[in-house]
């Protein structure tokens, strides 16, 4: 059994993991950069180790330092959280080679899903619906034209090694196609070290719907329903909900089961998320995230499960605590990501927090590393809090979210709370009538 976990992350997710460990009686080691010496995750942990200067490459991405910290603190497992080293197969492998437990999937699966082309081929073979497009990397414009003719315009060109929406180009006409191919390939080479790209059908008004999975080392895989993450700005999720207002029960059950069966076939373990674009009743694979996601609490709230606890159980070789037939979806949950940024200009707003007061009461959960007097450092992600609200149905959930947003006080910084408050008043959002472009249209971007 795991007795001490080093948490290779910072901010709210480090605290999320720390809480799960503490509730399981497991010791915690926080790592931090010099900029985070006063951070809440350091203050709450049983032990902490400074692993480097503020720059992430030398601290939170510093594999050697983190492994050394694990060794000298006597941790027997490492939880990577999300971001940073969470999908770094080399790190996962190093952790295992050091005789420590990596709380996550095998490095082989991280590798498989890390390359878009390999991932697409693997999940397609396992039965997951994919977007029509090139089978592999495309460099020849003639080949690209042939594919575009076959699958129909518009098409999108994506970096094989990319992610987070970078290195993408849309071609609406055949004339666009050649330029788009060249630019995307150059960008991909610069950003990801490989110019390999692929061509796919471009969906005009899709929703982003993802299926949460949970698997153990004993062949058990369950799906925990979907999250609708269509509210995005520059491919960054802003608000997530479950269930999706767009799906009915039979669609939910069907895509859940298709995904579950495929992941079982792949022999995957730990948590994972298969992301889809959804349009006109059809699902198209985007990518699989081989880690805990920012929005995992939405699923926890509707399923009554603790996903981090399950990850730790799986990493200890225990079977899942539930079977698919035990999974119950209850009510509706929404997560608002609260960023330290101006709600209109989106200018980052690090700095010292004045009064901090989080909302409370029935159905309200706050995951945050903020406290009164804390200084949000300028070096890291701007997400400073997650407000997650549960209600017996979507309307109750929205009403509760509205009152919780009104109660939330974060003085001293600009935050995206006013943006969320504005969303609550938008008829399209209230009616669940939005796609992945809706938010940017609303913001006039």
């Amino acid at each position, binding site marked *: 059994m795991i007795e001490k976990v080093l948490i290779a992350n910072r901010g709210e997710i480090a605290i999320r993991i720390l809480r799960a460990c503490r509730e399981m009686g497991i010791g915690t080691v926080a790592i931090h950069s*010099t900029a985070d*010496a*006063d951070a*809440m995750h*350091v*203050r*709450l*942990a*049983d*032990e*902490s*180790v*400074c*692993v*480097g*200067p503020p720059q992430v490459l030398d*601290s939170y991405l510093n594999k*050697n*330092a983190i*492994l*050394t*910290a694990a060794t*000298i*603190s006597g941790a027997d497992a490492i939880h990577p959280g999300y971001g940073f080293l969470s999908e770094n197969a080399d790190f996962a492998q190093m952790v295992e080679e050091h005789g420590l437990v990596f709380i996550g999937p095998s490095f082989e699966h991280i590798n498989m899903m890390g390359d878009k082309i390999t991932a697409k081929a693997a999940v397609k073979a396992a039965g997951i619906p994919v977007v029509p497009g090139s089978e592999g990397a495309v460099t020849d414009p003639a080949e690209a034209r042939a594919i575009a003719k076959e699958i129909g315009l518009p098409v999108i060109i994506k970096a094989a090694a990319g992610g987070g929406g970078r290195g993408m180009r849309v071609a609406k006409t055949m004339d666009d196609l050649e330029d788009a191919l060249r630019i995307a390939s150059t960008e991909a080479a610069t950003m990801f070290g490989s110019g390999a790209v692929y061509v796919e059908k471009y969906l005009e008004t899709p929703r982003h719907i993802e299926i949460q999975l949970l698997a153990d080392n004993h062949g058990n895989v369950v799906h925990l329903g979907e999250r609708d993450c269509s509210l995005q700005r520059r491919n960054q999720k802003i608000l997530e909900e479950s269930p999706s207002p767009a799906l009915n029960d039979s669609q939910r059950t069907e895509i859940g089961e298709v995904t579950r069966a495929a992941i079982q076939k792949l022999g995957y373990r730990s948590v994972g998320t298969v992301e889809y674009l959804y349009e006109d009743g059809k699902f198209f694979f985007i990518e699989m995230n081989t880690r805990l996601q920012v929005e995992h609490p939405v699923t926890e709230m509707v399923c009554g499960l603790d996903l981090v606890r399950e990850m730790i159980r799986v990493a200890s070789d225990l079977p899942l605590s539930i079977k698919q037939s035990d999974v119950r979806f209850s009510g509706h949950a929404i997560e608002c990501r609260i960023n330290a940024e101006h709600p209109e200009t989106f200018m980052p707003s690090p700095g010292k927090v004045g009064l901090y007061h989080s909302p409370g009461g029935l159905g309200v959960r706050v995951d945050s590393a903020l*406290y*009164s*007097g*804390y200084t949000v450092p300028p070096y890291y992600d701007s997400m400073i809090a997650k407000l997650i609200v549960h209600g017996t149905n979507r309307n109750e959930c929205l009403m509760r979210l509205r009152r919780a947003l009104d109660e939330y006080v974060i003085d001293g910084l600009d935050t995206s709370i006013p943006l969320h408050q504005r969303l609550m008043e938008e008829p399209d959002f209230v009616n669940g009538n939005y796609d992945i472009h809706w938010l940017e249209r609303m913001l006039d971007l």
Partner: protein
Amino acid sequence: MSKSDKSPNIDAELVRQLAQLLEETGLNEIEYGKDDWHIRVSGGKTVATATVAAPLISASSAAIAATGEQDDDDVSSHPGLISSPMVGVVYTSSDPDTPAFVKVGDTVQAGDTLLLIEAMKVFNPIRAAKAGKVSRILINSGMPVEFGEPLLIVE
């Protein structure tokens, strides 16, 4: 390495020290603030107040306590301080049977090896950046050190 410690402390010594300064200088009031830390003493014979704001858990002082017996308050800003450039285990000699690279009072030249820090089975030499005299050694051999932890002072 820091074990967390929940009770914020009033630094009684600091209050006494400022009270003395007040008498000595004839001032009426000294107010002194730093980040989330604030102290104000006033009036030679009147009440002195100290407030320590916001430390949810004051881990920082415990972190320092683990690095040695010395009082590190002045050490951290010492111009001759050599801090650890990495997380690891520090050694004062190349193996237990060999004498230490340096001891207090030794004169060193730029480039001399002062300590070793082991990280990931690699022993990294910590070398003197400039010549000088070793005035303090702040660690014990075999001790784990954090990034930025004070190691020794060469002045």
